[in-house]
């Protein structure tokens, strides 16, 4: 099995606010991420696909096709958008790294026809990221 990773960058704004909590609780839990008018990040997304290289082409998958899937599913939805207001898949959720990574996983997994989606890593900043993967396939719990 070979892993292949493609990286893309997008920029978006968000705010952390749970309407079921009081204003004080929101401030206590979310800190400056609760500032009412929101703020933004340059996100970096790393998408890793696992598979065997095709004996004819030497490729696990056609990177051009992956690029198009990422453009359609992620860039068009999230780049230069407000994640709370403009991304229906995130409606009702706090747009944390964890939740965005899971939404991206769910968007990409059914679209990837060559190889298997192995890991989605979303960086909110160089020092904060979330990984999403199927149990037993990545992370420290072993590879298949």
């Amino acid at each position, binding site marked *: 099995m070979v892993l292949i990773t493609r990286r893309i960058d997008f920029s978006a704004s968000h705010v952390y606010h749970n309407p*079921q909590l009081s204003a004080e609780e929101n401030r206590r839990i979310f*800190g400056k991420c609760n500032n009412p008018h929101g703020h933004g990040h340059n996100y970096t997304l790393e998408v890793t696909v696992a598979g065997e290289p095709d004996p004819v082409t030497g490729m696990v998958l056609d990177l051009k096709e992956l690029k198009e899937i990422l453009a359609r599913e992620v860039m068009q939805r999230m780049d230069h958008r407000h994640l709370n207001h403009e991304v229906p898949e995130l409606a009702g959720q706090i747009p944390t790294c964890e939740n965005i990574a899971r939404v991206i996983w769910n968007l990409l997994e059914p679209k990837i026809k060559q190889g298997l989606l192995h890991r989605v890593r979303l960086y909110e900043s160089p020092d*904060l990221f979330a*990984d999403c993967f199927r149990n037993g396939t990545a992370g*420290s719990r072993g590879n298949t």
Partner: protein
Amino acid sequence: MGAKANSAELIIELGRRYHFSASHRLHTAHLSEEENSRVFGKCNNPFGHGHNYVLEVSVSGPVDPATGMIANLADLDGFVEQAVLQVFDHKSLNEDVAVFLDKVPTTENLCIDIYERLKNFSHAKLERVRIEETRNNSFEYAGQQFARVPVASSAEKEQR
């Protein structure tokens, strides 16, 4: 492997990077001066040297629907600050950190020591620590069960 969908549960991990700077010298009293110099090379220079270390901490757990978080970053940052950064940042690993008074402060050993300091984080499960000693060298540890290949004992290595 075909393109058959895997139905195993989805796991989310949160990764956070921290930075600290420290000095060390790779040297062990179990070896002669010549052997130390041969084994550790310039890392054995008597007055030591330093690195800007990057510590990457990964934790897992259910994402709280109310907060969207595995763990509140303020809790994780506070725990790492107290358990690790205050102990290691701008210190001499050999002289200021008790465990390295009699253990070589390689980044392998540093990974194990920091994992042990962080494993009792109460808000999420510590998955692994990864340390970049320089941008070109990194080390990972995820507890004893991490080994995917059996670790040979010294006696077994002797037989090879």
